[in-house]
């Protein structure tokens, strides 16, 4: 049995299923017909008179003004050579373009062999003529092209670029130079793009506004959702995962649920204790104020005793080794490095901690 090929990435195999041999034939025919089906009636159309084609290029040579209008030039955007009057240019180039595009304008319909109907007035009928032409593999007759396009105003539709198409063919070198700027394009760019706003449907917002457009930028939902939940997670995740945040759990004996605090939000024990006090407002921590920003001071023996006797609860923390320590012994920076979680212990439970703390104080002092 022949090995079955796995299908690779989406873009790799460009194969199509052909349902019947007849459609293959028509497909093959179509690809060769493409050349003839030229919208502009320019090159490769066999039944266009060669005289017509040459008249087009003659026109182009004669209309120097038009050529200049589309010539690629050096210059900054907005600067224009003195002899060109933009208004005049647009109009004349348009008029001339029409002549280039529709060289059969002055000719009679009798020249068009592909149709026997009279010149249609509306674009629809013109198209149905064209459709008959298509089904026979022929191209759009010039009269239909004229009919289709004459109904639209010619000023802003880029018809002027028809001559640019020619220019493109004759002067390919110019197109590549980075400094040369297409004057007409710059003018197009300066316009506030009325086309887009005029044509676009209500669904999409104009590029000028910052409103979010559906499906733009083109990112798949899966990726969008992943990004969204990643940023949410980062707020909740523990100390090490996100630089700048240091959330640790705080439990209080007797409280029904735990809380979390970000140690990075505080720079001293006092701040932390008052925050915890607010959070678990049913207890009083007392004075931890002796530890200032420097964090060098150590809770003195007497103060600690006051604390333990004075308040109902004691602040303790679990360090890296898993031991439960009394808060306040070590400098603040060292504390936040080693602290993994906090526990607000009942004063009675904390008795066991006090002597060690007192001893430490004695050793330091």
């Amino acid at each position, binding site marked *: 049995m*022949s090995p*079955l090929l796995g*299908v690779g990435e*989406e*873009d790799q*195999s460009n*194969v*199509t*299923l*052909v349902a*019947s041999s007849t459609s*293959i034939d*028509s*497909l093959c025919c*179509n*690809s060769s*017909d493409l050349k003839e*089906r*030229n*919208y502009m009636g320019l090159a490769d159309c066999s039944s266009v008179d060669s005289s017509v084609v040459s008249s087009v290029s003659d026109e182009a040579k004669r209309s120097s003004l038009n050529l200049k209008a589309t010539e690629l030039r050096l210059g900054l955007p907005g600067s224009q050579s003195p002899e060109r009057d933009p208004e005049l240019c647009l109009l004349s180039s348009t008029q001339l373009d029409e002549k280039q595009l529709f060289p059969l304008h002055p000719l009679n319909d009798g020249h068009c062999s592909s149709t026997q109907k009279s010149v249609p007035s509306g674009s629809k009928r013109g*198209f*149905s003529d*064209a*459709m008959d032409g*298509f089904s026979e593999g022929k191209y*759009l007759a010039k009269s239909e*092209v004229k009919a*289709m396009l004459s109904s639209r105003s010619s000023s802003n*539709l*880029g*018809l002027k*670029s028809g001559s*640019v*198409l020619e220019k*493109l063919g004759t002067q390919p070198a110019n*197109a*590549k130079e980075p400094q040369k*700027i*297409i004057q007409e*394009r710059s003018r197009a*760019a300066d316009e506030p793009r009325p086309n*887009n706003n*005029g*044509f676009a*449907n209500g*669904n*999409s917002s104009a*590029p000028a506004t910052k409103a979010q457009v*559906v499906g733009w930028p*083109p990112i*798949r*939902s*899966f990726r969008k959702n*992943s*990004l969204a939940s*990643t*940023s949410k*997670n*980062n707020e909740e995740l523990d100390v*090490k995962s996100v630089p700048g945040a240091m959330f640790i759990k705080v439990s209080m004996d007797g409280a029904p649920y735990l809380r979390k605090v970000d140690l990075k939000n505080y720079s001293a024990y006092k701040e932390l204790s008052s925050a915890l006090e607010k959070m678990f407002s049913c207890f009083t921590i007392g004075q931890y104020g002796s530890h200032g920003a420097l964090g060098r001071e150590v809770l003195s023996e007497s103060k600690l005793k006051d604390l333990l006797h004075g308040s109902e609860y004691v602040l303790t923390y679990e360090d890296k080794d898993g031991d439960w320590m009394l808060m306040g012994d070590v400098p603040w920076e060292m504390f936040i490095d080693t602290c993994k979680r906090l526990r607000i212990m009942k004063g009675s439970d904390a008795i066991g901690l006090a002597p060690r703390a007192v001893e430490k104080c004695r050793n330091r002092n």
Partner: protein
Amino acid sequence: MQRMACSFPDEVLEHVFSFVQCDNDRNAISTVCKSWYKIERWSRRRVFVGNCYAISPDMVIRRFPDVRSIELKGKPHFADFNLVPDGWGGYVAPWISAMAAAYPWLEEIRLKRMVITDENLELISKSFKNFKVLVLSSCEGFSTDGLAAIAANCRSYLHCRNLRELDLRESEVEDLSGHWLKHFPDDYTSLVSLNIACLGCEVSFSALERLVGRCPNLRTLRLNRAVPLDKLANLLRRAPQLVELGTGAYSSELRPDVFSNLSGAFSGCKELKSLSGFWDVVPGYLPAVYPICCRLTTLNLSYATIQSPDLIKLVGQCQNLQRLWVLDYIEDAGLDAVAASCKDLRELRVFPSDPYGPEPNVPLTEQGLVSISEGCSKLQSVLYFCRQMSNAALMTIARNRPNMTRFRLCIIEPGTPDYLTLQPLDVGFGAIVEHCKDLQRLSLSGLLTDLVFEYIGTYAKKLEMLSVAFAGESDLGLHHVLSGCEKLRKLEIRDCPFGDKALLANAAKLETMRSLWMSSCSVTFGACKLLGQKMPRLNVEVIDERGTPDSRPESCPIDKLYIYRTVAGSRFDMPGFVWTIDEDSAMRLS
């Protein structure tokens, strides 16, 4: 001559044909003569249908009676970006029913952007005696119950069923429970590839561990985010033969024992060539993969929200990297580093970390892409999201990399001009199509006039797929593309001022393409009706959620248009917001 052609017995010809796998070549073979057509159709084992509505299942079955592998694609590409309303279509059900009856020996089903239900999955699991491969790419409509059915019926001595591949690439799965994995029988050992990265829920980890442990041929394992990092080492130790791995969430408390365990497990995977996953990365754990970086050819960090220095350290060790997907956190500096170390790079995709923010959040510009184009001589495929671009940069890229075949640039703000000259980016893209003569796929963005389409029509002779958004000025633009791009198969356009004229003038071209999508353009319903009536081999679908297009003037632009060639006629499963026009001029509703 004729006698010579028939002098080979059919079996010999069939054997010869078996060496021809490419569909285009097989199509060509089938047109030589009747007997070759007959032999070819009986021996064709693999069928690719690029548009499931271009042909009916019965037609495929009639022509190719003994198919073992089928690939179907449903919705248009823009469905990925929510431009195709729900319920549009792409149902695989009729195909599964037809094939269940006609292809009992079907082995492989690959679907892309199709709707598949749990019932369909159950039917698959029960109908095909030798079923091996199920790939559901960007599909939807099913839940973990359907997966349970696949798992439960994956193995049978009686029917020789042995599932090898279950790949759920980026599909939308309704997560009912993670227990579906337990349905794989205990004696099932033939799994080769499992991709569940898109699943949201936690799968039963013990079942996963056991499954991985008993399948010695497992080479691809893509986990979902819910699999914690501290469990990864266990899985890796059970499957050291893995070639492709997708991690789950790559975060855990930094603990030396977890780290060394993970690092050891990675080192044990000597065949690992592809890494992905990396959600919620804790940078401290990245060095665990350093030992295998030199063997990596594919690295997908596009979900890893890590900063440039960490990215540089990682990617700098991947000298054999061919494919890199990353977030724009990599910055221009990171891409410079990639250009210096990854000389074998073929494909680069840079995704935006903050696509909806008004301002750039990272220093990633066109410069990064230029560096890559200079440093990576084998670069062929690019997908790049950025916020600024210049014609000069595009020209440099084009000149550096004429071997480019896929170029997709997304400048995040629509209509952004060249930031240096404030000109449109026409000449830049023009340089791309002119220099990259083998360009097959192109996506445009930024400020663009009709000129860019002239360039494309003139130069992009091998272009097969073009995506356009917020570009162009007139119908001339569309006309250039339709009349100039000889190999064009797929054209998708949104928010461009293209109307009826170019479309109608190039109607016959549409039959040579797979499909055309136009949304928020200026095509009128009148033109659609005309096209539908005159082109019987095209389905012209008007998608409009505002109600019937007849209720608006014919000159009013329609919302969305999807035109595709078909030999199957209009489809019967259209929802209420899709209208199509038949040749009998009657407007057909669903």
